[in-house]
């Protein structure tokens, strides 16, 4: 059971959260300008990388707010949490947020 540091509520058990997949995949400005292939990329394709991964979480059984996190997919360690809309932080530090 991961301990996830909700930026609004503090550290809470993983089962209070829902997962929202890769972060920083915005809804296209004008979907109609996109080719079918580009639209399909937005709909169906996500990175599946080993290592630091920016992803979205929602504290569904808590404050119900969405936020972004950077998690190491090899260790499950959360390296940073940050608010929706904020840019992906540079990780100048080693280790977790808690």
């Amino acid at each position, binding site marked *: 059971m991961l301990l996830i540091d909700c930026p609004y509520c503090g550290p809470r058990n993983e089962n209070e959260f829902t997962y929202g997949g890769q972060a920083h995949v915005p809804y296209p400005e004008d979907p*109609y300008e996109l080719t079918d292939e580009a639209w399909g990329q937005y*709909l*169906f394709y996500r990175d599946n990388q080993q290592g630091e991964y920016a992803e979205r979480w929602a504290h569904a059984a808590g404050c119900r707010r969405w936020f972004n996190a950077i998690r190491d997919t090899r260790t499950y360690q959360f390296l940073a949490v940050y608010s*929706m809309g904020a840019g992906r932080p540079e990780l100048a530090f080693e280790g977790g947020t808690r």
Partner: protein
Amino acid sequence: MSAPTPEIRAVSRRLPGGGRIDRSTSFELTVDGVPVAAHPGDTVASALLASGRTHVGTSLYRSRPRGIVSAGVEEPNALIRVRESGSVAESMLPATAVPATDGLEVETLSGRGRLDPGPDTDLYDKKYVHTDVLVIGAGPAGLAAAAEAAATDARVILLDEQTEVGGSLLAGGETVDGRPGIDWVDDVRRDLASRPEATVLTHTTAFGSYDGNFVIALENREAASRAPGQRAAGVSRQRVWHIRARQVVIATGAHERPLVFANNDRPGVMLSSAVRSYVGRYGVAVGARVVVATTNDSAYATVSALQGAGIEVAAVADSRASLSAAASAARQDGVRVLTGTAVVDTVEAGDGTGRVAGAVLGALTPEGTLTGETMAVDCDTVAVSGGWSPVVHLHSQRQGTLVWSDRLAAFVPDQAVDAQQVVGAARGDYLSADIVSRARAVGAAAAARAGWGDAPEPVDSEPTGDGDTRPLWLVPSVAGEDQWENHFIDLQRDSTVSDVLRATGAGLRSVELVKRYTTLSTANDQGKTSAVNAIGVIAGILAGGGGADVSMGDVGTTTFRAPYTPVAFTALAGRERGELFDPARLTSIQEWHVEHGAVFEDVGQWKRPRYYPQGDEDMDAAVNRECLAARTNVAFQDVTTLGKIEIWGKDAPEFLGRIYTNGFKKLVTGKGRYGIMCTADGMVFDDGVSLRLEDDRYFMTTTTGGAARVLDWLEEWLQTEWPDLDVHCTSVTEQWSAIAVVGPRAREVVAKVAPDLDVSQDAFKFMEFRTTTLASGIPARICRISFNGELSFEINVAGWYGRSAWEEVAAAGAEFDITPYGTESMHVMRAEKGLIIVGQDTDGTVTPYDAGMGWVVSKPKDCIGKRSFSRADQEREGRKQLVGLFPVDKSFRLPEGAQLVEKGTPITPEEGPVPMIGHVTSSYFSSNLGRSFALALIKGGHSRLGDIVTAPVNGILMDVEITDSVFYDKEGTKRDG
């Protein structure tokens, strides 16, 4: 279950003194119906041994006599079924870990348990706690670490699976800080008890270790109470602890390994440490004359203990070529120590019990082969020590790595898991002085890491072990090179060296494959005594008796998985069983439905009346009657369960326009509109009617099962994509009760219930709503919404008025013979009108166009999913589309989910695979139509109206005609009454 083998030695083997048992109290338990005397502090196994019985159930596959092997949870043989007065019987428990209690009924098992058919009426509960430092295991290492951590005032939890703290020190004979180990244990116990932030839990096994230092442990509270059957009311029998720890210290000790020689499974062959434990801790002589077989120094503590208790040590077979200091000391005490020697076989007693009556000793060459003549030594017990395996399960469950140490002949933890440390025998320190000094440093450091004190990090160091070990993975066979049938590796599985040879002979090399091929280490002890020996045997076989050098590390371990020891499902369930397993959601009208004989169905967590049978009606009869009432007279339904969400804010109209495929900006206040929402890939996600309450306020309804999902969906888009929109969403499902009044005479009923309201068609049109006060004084919002095509009113009142308003409708409708109807009739009637149920007639691959609802997609505005409607895939021929079906046989009801094929398609196995063209999504018998009908998704269905296709159903080939999906009142003449 097995009949116990006759045991001739029914004499008491209780030593005159010593041990941790309370000799001032005696009681009896029964084992296979025979009374056995015991003292508090005994386990079932120690009581059995004290009564002179070594035998337990015979082996699972080969029915060989078996005896008690160990003194702990690693026991492979002594499995029992126990029943404590007032509790359910439990199977497959190790007798070596079950405390003996007064009146306990014990039955020995042959490796296979039996569920108690009776209900388990005991209480089980859970506890969730946080701690700075969690110490697992209360032997010398755990006690020392916990004491140091607790001294900083850090919050400390110390767990141990045994009845009391002390671990290996309980067997006696060891010293700590120059004092008897037991005295030191008592000091630490008292110290911890005096610290308010320290919790010590005995009878508590940490069985699972998960990410984020989340450890789950099972506390046996019945045993802890020491007064079984007399627990106070409301006290749980077992408790599952969910522990979140900043720091974890693993001090789980080590398990001794047996030796793999011929006939090593005879009763009387026992782990050396167990022999010592029975003597020192339980005051039981396991035999009268003992041969000790060892690969390391630890067995000499057993030799001393036996001598101290006056038990004859016939010989010590030490595999090592030269005398260690401990071996020399034993020899000076007059013990016959034979170096470079192994026990190679055992002699069976002549009394038919199968018990060991002698050990066959053989000298070993430096290469490990036999040399010279073998020699038989009479004995009734063979104490074996094949070395020690650190209990690394919890470390490994967290993907902590292991490394093979040749010096220790053991897999030891390599890199510690983040925020964890391993101490004591679990890391390969075997001597008390080494264990305690390092554990103290680790305990203090763990507290410091958690923010208590400023102790330094412990210095990295190699585990110290205890002298040299010469492991014997595969003791040569005296009977011949190919005689391995009775070299047992896994006693519980009856797996032998022969089995491993068969696996390697079949070409298997991976330990994971050999494990599965042979079932080695797959019994309920998960190979605690057998796994490392199995790896040794595999390595030995793969090395091929010389030539290739296959190390233990090359073979590697199998994967360690939770639970460390078996846990009953009932404990995991805790109080979440019966009604609390999945709490039911009930409307405020529920009791009326029960009183009126409703049959319920589950819709999500809701209980909804499915139909209301009268007299001896079956469902079909009840549904026919209910539908007829709704179509020709008047009927009413509890529709409280529909999801309801209030949507507020100045941007609410814009927001709904983006969420729904159709527009809601121009919807006039006081009116409602049906809408469909799609996911970004254009598939139907949910539907429902939304009312515009005010300019900036809407009341959205969702499907019953989709309410939570829709709220999540709305909030996700608002927070992640459109934070600039001023919109707030609030679930109000529980705040409203809703009653649908349906049928040609609905207007007359509603006119009575809501006398202030002009319900005439001119004053109150379809898809409008009004606020009013019912005759009873209850404030209400009444909508003209229909889900079956009839004149229909939906009366919404505050949740707590639900039943009152319902009864008001029932009373007003009595003169019209108003009929309550359930979800089944609702389903039939909506299907007659071709109205979809999202999730039944759609499945995540259906667009509004596929569902024949293109009209619901607004042309001028954009919405979620709209871009996807112009993807090439949407233009594809053969998309599955929603249509109606008429079975040619009007009385034949197709099963929902039935597949559809082209007429004439051969469906024999030889002609397969059969091309499917679609499936039935909804299917009913309609009393209004006088026939069966269905909805279906069929490839290219919209252009196939009138075609005949076939539904193969249980051997019948039923032809069905594809039709339009609206079966009833296509012109919509009924809607306004």
